[in-house]
Each structure stands twice: as C-alpha cells, then as structure tokens.
C-alpha cells in the first residue's frame, strides 16, 4: 500500500497530474493529427496509383511515391524521429514545436501504410462503380471522392482502426525528441520516486482504456456505415 501512497502523493500533491494530462493531450494530438495527415497522404497516393493509363508526369510521381513508401515502411519509427528531429529539420531550418514535428513525422509514417491499405480498399470496389460514375459525367477525381472512396473506406474501416491503435501505441517513443507524452509523464514520476510499480501499471491501464475506447468507436462507425446493407 505504501507505493500507492507515494504515487498519489506525487500525482496530486506535487502536481504530477498536470504532466499526466498534458502528456495525454500530446499523445492524443499526435495520434489523431498523424492519422488525419496519413489518411490524406494515403488517399492521394492510392488515387494516383490506380489511374489506369498514366502519362509521364504521373509515372514519375508514382515512382516518387514508391520510394516514399519504401523509406517510411523500411525504417523504424524511432529512427525516423531521430533523423528528422536532429538532422533533417535543422538542416532545412524548420523551427517548430516538437509536438508539431512529431505530428508531421507520424503523419508521413502512417501515410505510407495508409496508401497500401486504401489501395486494397479501392481495388475491392467493383469496377462498374467507376464506369457508372464516369458515364454520368463525373470526372475521375470526382468519381473517386463521391463514389469510390466512401465505399472503399467502409471496406477498410477495421484495418483503419488497427492503424489508429498502432499509431497511438507508437507515440510512446516521442520522448526521444523531447516531447512530453503519456509515457514520459509517468516515467518522470517513477524516476523521481524510485517507485516503478504503480506508475507503470497506471501507464499501461491508460493506454488500454484509450485503445478500448477507440475500438468501441470504430464498432459504432461500422454499424452506422452498415445501414445500407440488409
């Protein structure tokens, strides 16, 4: 019981909760905005990848996207954080808060995975849908946005949920670039009290609750999107 008392003392009396909630907010910001950026990047790449007859411009763009996907899927998240934060961003003179940096890097990382997920989802939509859209007079991009993507997203929603969950958990490494996140906030309490058991249990429980919450949210969305099925 003594270690719980120590934890509570640090958490409440010495203001540990401030860091905890700030860390929680940062974790959420990085995961949510990372996911959004990744989604937009993924949509763009997947759309370019399925253009049927590409001209030279799109062929080059396609190759660039291939390199991008290879780089971001082929290296660990931590390495990407370190490389960009300490080498690339200073080199191009980018001077923004570490949280914003983390959002960008997580967005780029998740975009590489999302591109492939979305491509699979788009390919699973019947080709007749594209033809029907085009025959009504919609352009390629319009058909994509109004007709194909809504159906593709419904197909891949469970996988997107997986991606979001993975992203939340991966944010636990952002303390490498001096971002105060959930993990770092509880690590700080553990380090200053030399008492590890309770803080890390709380840490694990917090992630678990976050993930379970998201799982429930995705289930709800799936149900809503399934209303056009019998």
């Amino acid at each position, binding site marked *: 019981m003594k270690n719980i008392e120590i934890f509570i003392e640090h958490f409440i009396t010495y203001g540990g909760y401030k860091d905890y909630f700030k860390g929680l907010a940062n974790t959420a910001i990085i995961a949510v905005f990372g996911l959004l950026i990744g989604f937009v990047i993924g949509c763009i790449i997947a759309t370019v990848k399925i253009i049927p007859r590409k001209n030279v411009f799109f062929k080059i763009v396609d190759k660039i996207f291939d390199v991008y996907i290879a780089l971001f899927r082929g290296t660990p998240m931590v390495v990407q954080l370190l490389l960009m934060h300490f080498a690339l961003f200073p080199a191009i003179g980018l001077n923004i808060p570490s949280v914003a940096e983390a959002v960008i890097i997580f967005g780029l990382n998740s975009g590489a995975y999302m591109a492939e997920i979305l491509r699979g989802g788009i390919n699973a939509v019947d080709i007749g849908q594209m033809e029907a859209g085009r025959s009504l007079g919609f352009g390629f991009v319009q058909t994509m946005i109004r007709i194909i993507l809504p159906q593709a997203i419904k197909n891949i929603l469970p996988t997107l949920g997986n991606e979001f969950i993975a992203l939340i958990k991966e944010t636990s490494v952002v303390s490498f670039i001096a971002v105060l996140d959930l993990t770092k906030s509880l690590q700080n309490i553990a380090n200053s009290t030399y008492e590890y058991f309770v803080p890390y249990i709380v840490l694990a429980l917090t992630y678990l609750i976050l993930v379970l919450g998201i799982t429930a949210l995705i289930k709800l969305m799936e149900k809503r999107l399934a209303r*056009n099925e019998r």
Partner: protein
Amino acid sequence: MKDNQNNVLLRVNDLHKKFGKLEVLQGVNLEVNKGDVVAIIGPSGCGKSTFLRCLNFLETPNSGEIIFNGDTVFKNMRVYLKRNLRAMRAQKEYDKELYAQIEAEYISLKKEEKVIEKQMNKGINLHRQKIGMVFQQFNLFPHLTILQNITLAPMQLKKLPKDQANEMAMELLKKVGLEDKANAYPSTLSGGQKQRIAIVRALAMEPEVLLFDEPTSALDPEMVGEVLNVMTELAKSGMTMIVVTHEMGFAKEVANRVIFMNDGVIKEENSPEEFFGNPKDERLKEFLSKVL
C-alpha cells in the same frame, strides 16, 4: 435529304477497336436519327457491348470517326494513310510524287485529329452527360439512397438546387412506380427494381440518347417484363435509344431498326418486320433459328 441530315444524332464511320491482338470492332458504320430505337443483337463476343462503350468512351476506339450532334467527338482516320505510306515505302520503286501528296495529306489530317483529341480530353465529361448509360449489372451506388443515387449527378454536375432535384427525382420515380423506395438503399431492392432505378438515374441527367448494355440479362425472367415496360414507355416518349439486347420480343415490338452484329461488323440492318420476317445474312438466319 437536308431535313434528314438535321435529324441525325449520331454517326459512326468505320470504327475499329482492338484489345491487344484481338480486333473486336472491325469497321462499324451506323447512323442514328433522333427518336430512333435501335436494337443491336448478335452472338456473344461479337463486339456489341464494346461498340456501345466506345460511344461514350468507356473504351477508346483505335480508329474511325464518331460524330455526335454535328460535333466530331472522335476522329482517327490517319492510320489508313500511314498504312498506305508504309506499304509504299516497302516497295522498291514507288511514285515519289504520290507519296509526297499522301504524306502532306497525312500531316494535315494528323493536325486536325490532334485538335479534336485535345478538345475531347477536356470535353469528355460534358459529352458523357449527354449520353446516358444503363448497365447489365445496374451499378447503383450502394452507399447512397435511391433518391441520392438519382440526384447526385444533377446536383453536382448541373448545379440543380436540392429541392428541384428531389422534385424531379420523385416525378421520375413515380413514372416507374417506385416512389415509395426513395429513401431505401439499393441492396433492399430486387433486380428489376434496381434496373428501373438505374434507368431513372440516367434519365435524370436529361441525356440526348440512352445506351442500354444488355439491361435485362442479369434479371430473373419474372422481372424482365417490368424493365422492358419502362423501356417501351421511354421509346414511346420519343427518347433516342440504342439497346444491346437478347430480348427478341423487344427488338421486334419496340425498336424501329434492328441490327445484327457479328465478327465486329454490322452484318444486317433493317426494319424489325424485314429483319425477322426475311433475314438475308446466313449467320443471322442461323442465329435467329437458335434464339426464336
């Protein structure tokens, strides 16, 4: 004949289409007047569907000419000149003067055709708005309600206000007897109902011609009638229609021209009475004896 000229909605000259080495269309010629109901029949694989899909550029033809409402929407005739030139060059001795003449012709034709191609690259969506298409597999949008299926294109492409679009959609739905399905999703409909909705969706864009690609082939026999009834009503209202079909009854009763396609060309074209009563092409006789 001038009057007749003005009446021509669609003219197709010598249309060719290849898939790899397979030449599916081998020179199709067709003229469709406003208000015509043209039924195209023929054995499977003869190029009926491909021909239809070339008309709204779901497939790009390789060569030939398509004139829609007086506008040339596709032209590639230079390939023949190119072929001539190549054949001439292959001979040891050829008429240099004639060669130069053809070459000049080729270059000017190429210029003209490139301009048309460029215009069509920009204008293709507008062209498709004027040509409605009904598919064998219906291709309704499953994530939208029936009403949204119908109003999506008019609202987005013609900028029709929502209440007007809904009003028009409901009117069309009444005509096909499905107004009670307006807020249902496509998956709750039967095949015949889906196809009637698909026809309404195409009609909502007020096209100048409707293309039907085997509209009843994916339906239960029981449901064929309800779709054909809608199409018959449409034909009576003066809609120009080109229908690829296996429904000989429809071709006989509703169409005013029937076309038999085989091996990528039109083998026979006639009024329904002549076509079914007195077929001339040998392959057509054989085909009719099998299907009638």
